[in-house]
């Protein structure tokens, strides 16, 4: 296999907690705590997790929109962490991001043409070719080029997300970080945007890092999926293995909690209902971070941090007691409902 497009090694992003008159640092929020992931050319890697698991910070750290605390990010073998500002700007032409909220991520005072042309302007493209490119991009995302002089408020949520995608495409990137790109959209519109992302990937040879909390959407779009919990990767595998043969108790619980739009399946399912809430990332539990909610945790889990171990080619899990294929956590602990 060729070298991966993006190589993230042991990435750590902490935020200081400050208090008092002199803003003294009194602690750290461990948002991302040692994440290693690779993304290959034209591949979609999904990152799922609940709120506070660090998935958004992870995505932003890759582009250094948030400065990582330690670890390395390499793009085509070149370090992004440690790159000079000028070099970083050039690298960002290759790595783009689409944000969750299509209302907040577009400047309301700028017509759509200018919004999409902004990355081109920053990278020094002349006005006329930039305008031609904008029309091309609007068409590529399924909008009418003549609507380019309208303002964001004149578009629906789904259309705005298309504008955000067009802006990300402007510089011909190889990688787009998609941070919850469809979760603000109505169900009937979500599918349009997902299909558009599929088409664009095909057309422009894109790789995606798809960050989302919706496991159904992630399964649909991803080749490989990483499950994050409190700043760490709990499990990573190709999409089918992860959903059909999950090994981490957290992955099991997540999958069993997702409601399925099928009344008979839904009523007859045995479900693991996790107790308690996600602990605060400012003071994560010792050992395995999931142990406070894990139904099969034992003493060892509190003392020893589980490292990612390979179960099958490409399938890694960070758990002392991974669940064997075919076994179900529900049967191991007895059903909760």
């Amino acid at each position, binding site marked *: 296999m060729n070298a991966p497009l993006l190589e993230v090694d042991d990435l750590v992003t902490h935020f200081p907690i400050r208090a008092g008159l002199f803003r003294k640092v009194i602690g750290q929020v461990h948002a991302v705590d040692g994440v290693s992931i690779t993304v290959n050319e034209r591949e979609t890697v999904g990152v799922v997790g609940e709120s506070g698991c660090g998935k958004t910070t992870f995505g932003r750290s890759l582009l250094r929109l948030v400065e990582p605390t330690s670890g390395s990010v390499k793009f085509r073998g070149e370090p992004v962490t440690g790159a000079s500002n000028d070099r970083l700007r050039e690298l960002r032409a290759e790595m783009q991001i689409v944000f969750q909220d299509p209302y907040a991520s577009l400047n309301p005072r700028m017509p759509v043409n200018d919004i999409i042309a902004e990355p081109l302007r920053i990278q020094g493209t002349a006005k006329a070719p930039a305008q031609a490119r904008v029309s091309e991009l609007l068409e590529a995302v399924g909008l009418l080029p003549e609507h380019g002089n309208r303002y964001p408020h004149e578009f629906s949520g789904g259309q705005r997300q298309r504008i955000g995608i067009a802006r990300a495409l402007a510089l011909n990137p190889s990688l787009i970080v998609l941070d919850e790109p469809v979760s603000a959209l109505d169900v009937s*519109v979500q*599918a349009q945007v997902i299909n558009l992302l599929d088409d664009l990937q095909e057309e422009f040879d894109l790789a995606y890092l798809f960050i989302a909390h919706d496991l159904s959407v992630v399964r649909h*779009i991803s080749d490989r999926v990483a499950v994050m919990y409190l700043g760490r990767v709990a499990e990573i595998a190709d999409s*089918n293995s992860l959903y059909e043969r999950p090994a981490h108790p957290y992955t099991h619980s997540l999958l069993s909690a997702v*409601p399925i*739009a099928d009344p008979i*399946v839904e009523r007859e399912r045995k*479900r693991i209902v996790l107790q308690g*809430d996600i602990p605060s990332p400012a003071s994560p539990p010792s050992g395995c971070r999931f142990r406070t909610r894990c139904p099969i945790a034992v003493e060892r889990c509190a003392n020893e941090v589980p490292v990612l171990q390979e179960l099958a080619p490409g399938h890694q899990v960070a758990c002392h007691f991974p669940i064997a294929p075919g076994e179900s956590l529900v049967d191991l602990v007895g059903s909760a409902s």
Partner: protein
Amino acid sequence: MAQDDLLLDVSDLSVAFKTKKGMAAAVRGMSLRVARGESVAIVGESGSGKSVSSLALLGLLPKSAQITGSAKFDGEELVGMSQNDLRAIRGKRISMIFQDPMTAFNPVFTIGDQIAEAMEVHGTAEGDKALMEAANLLELVGVPEPGQRVNQYPHEFSGGMRQRAMIAMAIANKPDLLIADEPTTALDVTIQAQVMEVLSDIRKESGAAMILITHDLGVVAGSADRVQVMYGGRVFERGTTNDVFYDPLNPYTRGLLRSMPRVDAIGERLVPISGSPPSILNMPPGCAFGPRCDFRTDACVADAASLELVKPGHESRCHHTADLPAYEAVETLT
């Protein structure tokens, strides 16, 4: 359903708002019947009128809202009822669970005080007894250490715990009807599963009926006896949960079901509905779904179809009910 089992009977309910850009018709001739102990889901996207209709029932809309039609709760007419009389029903016989538990609680009073107040207002319990009862309720909805939690403020509760506390407040006066408006939309999946379980246990115990307002068909599948699908302020389809999911009659319902990726299905290409939901300020003529519908004909533009009984207990609003192809569900792994 037998007449004396009927708890809520809404017919021809319309809600319009006066805005600078003209009248906005949010709900247009909606009907809804809920039997005692039954769970009915109202499903729809933004602007479908699903939330506005229930707010209208409880008199919780601003004065600019013009409400017509009828809503009989246990035989009593709610539309046009004075605020005083409504107050006696709200929080007592009908209570509401809102989407955002952060804004639904008052930040400067303890959770216990707020639950106790709900009881004091309706004379269910007083003073210390009310506060003790509040702790019992918190325990009932699965809040750990209820004795201490009862004295804490909303910001000391996590999202899931706050939603439990709101459920505790809603059931404090043993209502006959719970209206849950997107009760789990703001929560993570694992927390959503906890909250839906609490709701279901509570209802089993108290026998309260529930109106579940949501956009999430997965949540509906697991917890509703009947479903009504709304679009553009109107009911488009209504039936038992099984009927609506396995034999959807309306092109909109079918589109919704097909456009959703399923966690137990492999990544086939999704079949989206084209366009986006209409703005309530600018409803298309005739059928509101017309501009997005594959089966649209001139008849659909000329006038909106009426909601008709197609099979026992299963209604749909479409001119083309008779000539639609058979529904093919998305293939799944199981």
